[in-house]
């Protein structure tokens, strides 16, 4: 691996947002392929971050910084990348469902998904079902992700799924759910495609849903 790609990976691990952007630009100026920079620089760095976080050697604020630097670098490369997704893992519409104002978990999942290469459209909190259906029509995401902290608002996940079905959009997206009182069994009962038991697994589930097609 060339020295500059190594530096990019190191920059990602260190959460050096501006540094990574500069290095990516420098690598492009040096004539490196965008795809190479992505695969052998950014993604290598982010994979190491994931590994270190799992081993309790990195903390979540550092992971989020790394995710942000990853995202910055990727945005620079995007116009140069081939393929319809232009180097993106996919697109996610994410929101905390109607009636629920707790969005810290949703924010975490969103940031980690960005770090995993997703384009993230954030609907904020207290998002009613039609906000989700509108967003699906407008943004044509691969995945819709819903979050709730209360058992009462978990019902709104059901309402939203129903609204997506009724709008004829259910086969266009994968749906994943999460939040403290949510579990895999509930996700299955309401007919969601995936469930993340915490923020990190949320990003992993999103990737798996894309890979499964």
């Amino acid at each position: 691996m060339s020295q500059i790609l190594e530096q990019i990976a190191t920059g990602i691990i260190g959460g050096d947002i501006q540094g990574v952007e500069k290095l990516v630009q420098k690598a492009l100026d040096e004539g490196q392929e965008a795809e190479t920079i992505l695969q052998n620089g950014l993604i290598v760095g982010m994979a190491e971050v994931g590994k270190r976080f799992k081993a309790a050697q990195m903390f979540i604020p550092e992971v989020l910084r790394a995710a942000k630097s990853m995202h910055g670098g990727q945005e620079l490369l995007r116009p140069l990348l081939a393929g319809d997704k232009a180097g993106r893992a996919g697109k996610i519409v994410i929101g905390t469902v109607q009636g629920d104002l707790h969005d810290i978990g949703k924010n975490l999942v969103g940031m980690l998904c960005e770090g995993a290469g997703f384009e993230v459209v954030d609907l904020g909190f207290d998002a009613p079902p039609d906000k989700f259906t509108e967003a699906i029509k407008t943004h044509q995401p691969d995945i819709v992700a819903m979050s709730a902290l209360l058992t009462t608002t978990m019902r709104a996940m059901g309402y939203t799924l129903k609204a997506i079905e009724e709008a004829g959009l259910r086969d266009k997206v994968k749906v994943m759910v999460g939040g403290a009182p949510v579990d895999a069994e509930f996700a299955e009962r309401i007919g969601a495609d995936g469930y993340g038991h915490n923020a990190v697994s949320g990003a992993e589930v999103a990737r798996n849903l894309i890979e499964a097609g």
Partner: protein
Amino acid sequence: MRANYRVNSGVRFEVLSKDQLQEMFDGVLHVMDKIGLDVHHDRAREILAGAGARVEGKRVQIPPHVVKRSLATAPRSFTIYARDGNPAHDIHIGPGRSHFGPGPTPPNFIDIETLERRPYVRDDARIVATVCDALPNIDFCESLGTISDVHTDLAASYEFATMFPKTSKPIVAWSYGWDDSNDIHQIAVAEAGGQEAFEKRPNYVHYCEPLSPLVSTFEAVDKVIFAAEHGVPVIFTTCALAGGTAPVTPAGIIIQTTAESFMGLVLSQTIRPGLPFFMGGVLSVMDMSAMILTYGAPELSLMMAGATELAHYCGIPLWQTGGCTDSKCLDEQASLEGSLSVFFSALSGGDLCHDVGYTESGMTGSILQTVMMDEAIGYSRRICRGIEVNEETLAVDVIQDVGPDGHYLYHDHTMRHFKTEFWYPNLCDRRNFEEWDADGQKPMRDRVVERTREIAATHEPSPVRPETEKAIAEIMEAAEERVKDKS
């Protein structure tokens, strides 16, 4: 710009008011002057008489001015040094700082492989020292047992000879009498590079235990004399039971044990003014059903806190007690009793808190308990550190920056502080249910056993000097020679 701003550095905890402490101190002086103590040591009585005590038979009464003179020469602040010069292992005794370590002499030990209770053997001293050396919140070392597989008279000598090379944290040494005290001292002096060097940088503390009520035994006093003559910081501590060997009331037991300790104080300060001295005790209640000295009672925490305040009022450090339990196994009781006493010990700022790792009311040493309590000490220390209040920590501009409905996850302020503001556990599991479930649903005791075995197997303490290795071998050889004809 603020003026007249007074902050709490750490939390503030207080059991007794200044007036109450004065009254209790006067009570101690009364006991020493009017009741007196029995001292079973001819030479000690001579020394004390020379210092101004009234001696009649074995009974020694010490007038208040003599006690106060000794308090005036005993230091409040001093340092016990790591043998290898590692400053992280030095112990700085002084106001507001508590330190923790195991205790001496239980007959049994919990084997860290079989988890069975069995007699304490020599190799256990190696394990205890190695694990204590590695634990982040254990500051000094004691053996947690009496070695059963060597000549009885040499149990203490072998204990020290085995532990000393395996930890550079200061050891609190226990011994039977003059001879084995001397073995121990020669080992410490060998590493320090001679008696003079040792006196500049003492690397261990000597432990002496008189009897309650109000008896200074020959051995205890003999060891104080040894320590004073050789410049070894000394602990003079009784183990009193409220309702058994001391009054059932907390004020009464504190006054009595302080008087018992003060006999050692006066003796040591008379021989060597300025010698670092620790007042002591294990103060607890007698359980009136089980007829034991309880190591897990809430009264232990309360009485030890009161004794700590009295010692500090008098201007000397205290030998505290905590992290111990009446439980017979590594269980929730062991955890809750140990955690409570560790917490109160930390709150009261007792200078050296021992018995971290005592189980079964002091009958069984368990390094597993020590490892579990290392976590409780870290936890307690985080609370005791308190809350820093200044412009940076008040973070008004940060709150303004984030605003209602925002979040702090990306903020520079978060990056600056999250590692130091928050305590990170070693044994407490904070994963969510799914991850804990996938990892086998382990209770904390399983993690304690794993961590203990891992440290014992992998930790490498800094070695003693090669000369010391050789000295230890010679000292122990001579010791064996000394006792070979004794049964």
